[in-house]
């Protein structure tokens, strides 16, 4: 299975970040989440970034991009760096349902067959 992001459904509410962090650390904050909203606010350009086992998924509005480890992410400023240090997404294997999917109010996130 893998986590799919239908980027245009995203409204940038960020609750998925807090839900993922809750899965990892059992507290409420976005600090330890495997996914993070990237946003250039004044251009209204936004989408989720997911730290995965082997790479980084950038769910850009114009389409997904997979960035191999160690490669520079184009257009992502210093603010997006913390995602690289985070624990990778473990697909919530020990939970009944992935926390981010469960929390997302728009159906932007889902689990699909890989």
């Amino acid at each position, binding site marked *: 299975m893998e986590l799919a992001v239908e980027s245009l459904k995203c409204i*940038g*509410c960020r609750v998925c970040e807090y839900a993922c962090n809750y899965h990892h650390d059992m507290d409420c904050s976005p600090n330890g989440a495997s996914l993070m909203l990237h946003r250039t606010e004044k*251009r209204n350009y936004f989408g989720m970034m997911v730290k995965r086992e082997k790479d980084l998924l950038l769910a850009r509005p114009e389409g997904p991009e997979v960035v191999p480890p160690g490669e520079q992410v184009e257009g992502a400023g*210093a*603010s997006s760096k913390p995602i690289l240090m985070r624990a990778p997404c473990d697909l919530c294997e020990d939970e009944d349902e992935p926390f981010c999917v469960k929390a997302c109010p728009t159906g932007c996130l889902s689990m699909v067959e890989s």
Partner: protein
Amino acid sequence: MDIENAYMGRILVADLNEGTCEEEELTEEMVKEHIGGAVINLALYKQHVDRNPIVFGTGLLTGTFAPSSCAGVMTGKSPVTGRVCHVPLSWQTAVELKYSGYDFVVVLGESDKPVRLWLHDELAELADAGEVWGRDVWQTTDKLRYEHGDDYVQLIGIGPAGEKGCRIAQISEGAWGSRDVFGMGLAMGARKLKAIAMRGLGSLEVADGFFDECLEAQQELRKGASFEKQGLVALLEALGVDAADLEPIKQKVHRHVASFNCAYAANTFLMIDEPPGLLKESKKDEPGLLLTDPAGVISLLFLKEGLPVVLREINRQGLDPVACGALLKKEGVAEAGEAVKRVQALAGEEVDLEDAGVENVYGIAPWPLSEALEARLIQAVSVFSHAVPLSPLGGGWADVSVGENPVERAQWWLDRMAVSSILGICPIAALLSPEFTLQKMAELGAKAVDWDELTEEALLKQARKLVQETHALDEANGTVPSSWASADLDGALEKLRQGWEG
């Protein structure tokens, strides 16, 4: 009670005369006595009243898994109306305030040179603001985010209007407008406080079962009819704004954006200098603007295609769009280029709307229904922002179990605003979702901090006390412009007040 599930436990007292920042503990006793949000703001306001304080606070549930828990509240005396008001904060502002380590911030006195407050990771710093003083809201936001090395820094700030003593200056939330219709931008400017910048890596603990209970509540809300749509334009349609008037805006809609943890994206981005269908990142730095305030948009609809550019300038100057709209209309300025120039000039003027012949405008809503007795009652009480619609959204009054009695309707609205300001629930969400009952809100609050005594009844008692005490702080409260004074209003206001006493 597990206060660490809701609050960081810190109050900051920033003394602008002394240039000092001191911390106080937010104790469990305070939360037990006042619950949170606007009630604690008011207690802190009263405690420091001789220093003319401005208080910024977060609700009990702000920044938690509770649905639409994006809100915070600013409390202070309006330099324009002289009344104490509670202005809701939304977007990511109040969430970042709490996670910076401070649940409440009390600003005392005034500085003799421009200052800014920087709150991050449980540290507070009053710094020189010489470099941003004189800059517009967007330049200030960019500059401070760059300086602090982080695009996710959130800000409460002012533009040139607030600095120069303009009475229709509005506080901004980051680059965007707020729900301040009380001239609190001038209140900050008069203290030479340019901005509060916030960023934090704090975290809250979570009660067992709270996460799932919040998700269930969220799912319940989303069944409501309002949630079939998204965006600010749909809110305006629900309020009865003429579809033809909205057409020029609709053509520029880019994407809708939610405030923290809101299932309804109540903000809508308009593209001005790019095609609205653009998916790639624009090469332009400032191609459009985010609409965050339905009241401001209504007030400016007469500008038609010109609305976005004019509103962008209003946001940059840190002005109240409701007041600007009323004034531009009165002056007959309807052409976009001319209106932009007039807005730039307004930021440097004192602006007295009454002298300018604009009627009923301070703190008065532009809503289509603002003539109704319940709306006039709400505006006469004038403790919460009228930039929030004055009626239930979505299905209107038919959707909520309140009859036709204007006193009951006004009380329903005041209760919703007060409770959301205590708990930190977005006021728009509170009006959109009759399914989100006060009882449900109380249950989530009780669950969050494991506090059985937080019942709907306890919450309502605090809510009414909040309205009554804020209202009682100024004799002018309850007075209305002569053009809409009437015998039925006086009688109804008396009945409304009696309700709080009981």
